[in-house]
């Protein structure tokens, strides 16, 4: 077989010096154009969320009395009025609102994914490590939980205990750890038979320490991949709930809540109210999906 130049370079690199698996993964990731594009989009969106407010000429709470009542004629996007994205139907600056919404959506995504990761990893690792009856019962429970229509339960929780952002965070995180638990358990099953675990056990290390010190660090690649893919799903869930008006409440807002507001007012001709939040929502998801896919290709041992 003829080597392409790329393969030749790779072979030469292989021969010259040893590389860690992480360096390998990094190289694969940076060679993936879609992943790089996703990363660029993501950097832009995060930058927008973090530094957008310093560009805004209005805060997200101020009402612009000049445009109030004449949103359709005067509230459109313009540099002259300082409303780059226009205003919402109350005369608030949509640019500042979109910055705020992006911040909250990203935060919900990250916190939800973090909760899901911690709970799912510990649950899956414990079930996989102990095996036998413990494993059986724990995973059967996951099967049962997975049949629960979680969106309905989440709405039920939000209605009963008030529509607070804490409940939203906790609820989104706590319903999404199950897939993670399954993946981690599967990986743990293969790792726990390896020599280093055996050695740790032989020297009398206790089970919790083995799980935390020896098993979980070896799962970090898998966890990182599914965590990145979880973030957009968390954002989707939050936006769905907020679109129904049950999620983040005023004066806070999220991209889903802004899309909902925009969707409610398109009939009056204020399409910018839908357009800009929608654009940032789609960009965020795009970036996260591409980076997640890229990470999976780079870190997942299956496709090597």
């Amino acid at each position: 077989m003829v080597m392409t130049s790329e393969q030749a370079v790779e072979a030469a690199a292989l021969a010259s010096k040893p590389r860690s698996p992480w360096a390998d993964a990094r190289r694969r990731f940076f060679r993936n154009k879609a992943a790089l594009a996703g990363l660029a989009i993501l950097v832009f969106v995060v930058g927008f969320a973090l530094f957008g407010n310093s560009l805004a000429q209005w805060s997200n709470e101020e009402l612009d009395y000049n445009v109030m009542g004449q949103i359709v004629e005067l509230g459109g996007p313009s540099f002259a009025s300082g409303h780059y994205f226009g205003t919402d139907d109350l005369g608030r600056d949509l640019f500042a609102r979109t910055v705020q919404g992006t911040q909250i959506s990203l935060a919900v995504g990250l916190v939800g994914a973090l909760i899901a990761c911690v709970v799912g990893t510990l649950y899956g690792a414990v079930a996989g490590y102990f095996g036998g009856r413990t494993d059986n019962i724990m995973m059967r429970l996951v099967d049962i939980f997975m049949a629960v229509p979680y969106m309905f339960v989440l709405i039920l929780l939000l209605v009963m205990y008030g529509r607070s952002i804490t409940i939203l965070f906790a609820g989104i995180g706590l319903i999404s750890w199950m897939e993670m638990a399954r993946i981690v358990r599967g990986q743990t099953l293969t790792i726990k038979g390896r020599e280093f675990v055996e050695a740790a056990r032989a020297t009398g290390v206790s089970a919790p320490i083995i799980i935390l010190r020896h098993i979980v660090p070896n799962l970090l690649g898998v966890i990182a991949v599914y965590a990145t893919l979880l973030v957009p799903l968390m954002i989707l869930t939050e936006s769905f709930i907020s679109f129904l008006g049950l999620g983040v409440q005023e004066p806070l807002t999220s991209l889903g809540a802004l899309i909902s507001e925009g969707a409610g007012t398109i009939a009056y001709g204020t399409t910018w109210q839908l357009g800009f939040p929608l654009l940032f929502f789609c960009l965020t998801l795009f970036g996260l999906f591409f980076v997640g896919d890229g990470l999976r290709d780079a870190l997942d041992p299956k496709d090597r």
Partner: protein
Amino acid sequence: MDLFSYILKRLAIAIPTLLLLIVISFLLMHSAPGGPFTSERELPPQVLANLNAKYGLDDPLWKQIGNYVWGIVSEFDFGPSFVYKDRSVNEIIAQGFPITLTYGLLSFAVAVIVGVGLGVAAAVRHNTLLDYVAVGVSIGAQVLPNFVMAPILVLVFTLWLGWLPGGGWQGPEYWIMPVIALSTSFMASIARITRSSMLEVLTSNHIRTARAKGLPERLVILRHALKPAMLPVISYLGPAFVAMITGSVVVDIYFSTGGIGKAFVDSALNRDYAVMMGVTILVGALTIFFNLVVDILYGWIDPKIRY
């Protein structure tokens, strides 16, 4: 183990799951702060006591759960609504369910047929313009969930073009936008899954053999490649079905279609716990049933699977 005993075994798991779901949602409802009759208007204690007695709310907890479960199991009766005094939960659900079922099944069919078609076409014409278009469409549609599609569709087809009615449920022209809104992102996922699994199958030995013995390409694809390539798609159908039922909430709100999603959100806003529980349990039961069907289908397509 044969198929029949496999189904029995799965049912043996499904029934306790369902019971657990009922009990959990009942306990959730019970632990909610404020009873169903705490309203802005203070009720006289005697009236409240009578109401509680009528709805059985002063029975001990285990008896309430028992009655509720028994009502569902023996007569499929979810009890009375707490808000609409003259209507039962069954009536409210029965009103919306046929609507949800209609656009839900249509969306499901559209997502599967278009998604599989697009995925197969992209895989067969790998690395051609058609493939790139299909991949582009499926990546783009991935970030267009129902609540994003719905306003965009209304904006384009109702407000700009004036072709379709923006909401309501009267004839087939009212079905088009809900079905598109609900099916787009699933269509995209199915197309992606189909494409990658089809590409994998097309390089396998049995396809090379089929081609080598001179079968026309159409038959190779339809008869030999499609079936094994469908396995990952089928395992995606379970979660997709649940997500579509969930999406019906958005569709019902945005297009005023009047399905069970509307009943659910209305009852959520009215704190009509009985209706919320009824819908949750119904959706849970549908999910369990659908997962069972998917598992059976999976075993039927892949004879290697031992139950």
